């Protein structure tokens, strides 16, 4: 289950981008279909990781990108949630154009409450 390794990599990278004096609240990750990420497995791994590292609750949003396909016969380009093996023109000469993206897109952080701000 590569989702645990990916969850660890997301958390490591996200922590590096948290400004001093802030706390991580959420992360948004974008993944292409070739990465074979199971969303529920990633969420399970993420929660297990937060527990293991005693991290406060951090929400993980996974944006799953569709396949970008190209028909080499008619030239049509389209998006599909599944890898397609046939074009509308009946050609089976289909190629995927990309699909291996795996990026941390944004993080959300909150300021850590200081004793002074709590008192006020």
């Amino acid at each position, binding site marked *: 289950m*590569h989702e645990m*390794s990916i969850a660890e990599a997301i958390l490591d*990278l996200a922590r590096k981008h948290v400004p001093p004096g802030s706390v991580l609240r959420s992360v948004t990750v974008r993944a292409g279909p*070739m990465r074979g990420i199971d969303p529920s497995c990633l969420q399970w791994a993420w929660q297990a990781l937060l527990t293991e590292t005693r991290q406060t609750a951090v929400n993980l949003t996974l944006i799953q990108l569709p396949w970008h396909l190209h028909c080499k016969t008619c030239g049509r380009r389209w998006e599909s949630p599944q890898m397609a093996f046939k074009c509308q023109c009946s050609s089976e000469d289909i190629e*995927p154009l990309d699909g291996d993206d795996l*990026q*941390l897109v944004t993080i959300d952080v909150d300021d850590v409450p200081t004793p002074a701000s709590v008192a006020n």
Partner: protein
Amino acid sequence: MQVQVVENVLKLNDEVAGINRHRLHAAGVFSLDILGAPGCGKTLLVEKTLQRLAGKYRLGVIVGDLATQRDADRIAVFSDNVVQVNTGKGCHLEAHHITQALERIDATKLDILIIENVGNLICPVGFDLGQDVKVGIFCTTGGDDKAAKHPYIVKESNVLILNKIDLLPHVPFRRDIFEQDIRRLNADVPLLPLSAHTGEGMEAWISWIEAERAKKKT
């Protein structure tokens, strides 16, 4: 407050892989990462490959498995430079595993390093180890639909092997369907049918390794 990042999640792994690659190149080592499902014949192929390359090249092997020393013991018959990496719960090797294994092998005394990844058609593909080439292995007993179901390994491999062709008369494997699926996903990747068990097709595989090694050295 939202912070824009847009960075590769596996950036750290890729950086470590880059260090491994630099280290291996500096030592003049050509390296292969062997990927395939459990039972597809990775270890037998490594054994037979070592047999054919021994005497001509100085060979090293890093073997990844969740548990046991069994593959390293099998391979140690053919090479003195074998390191077993047990990943525990991890379903794939990562770049830092190779960095650690290279502490136990003197890369300057090698010409070729074979890395046998953990048996898995999915997870290892996305993790760069610092290798020169990725070798994806399918087998006739695994079914002719495995290339279509695992597009990432087909797209990312520098060469694909169809192992166990000696069993073709005994299994319902449509080679035309398998090859058509591969060509849709990766039009140019070399596909080498062979049987590590009988030796059929092994010459083409050995020639491919030697040609790729020669390309890397020029």
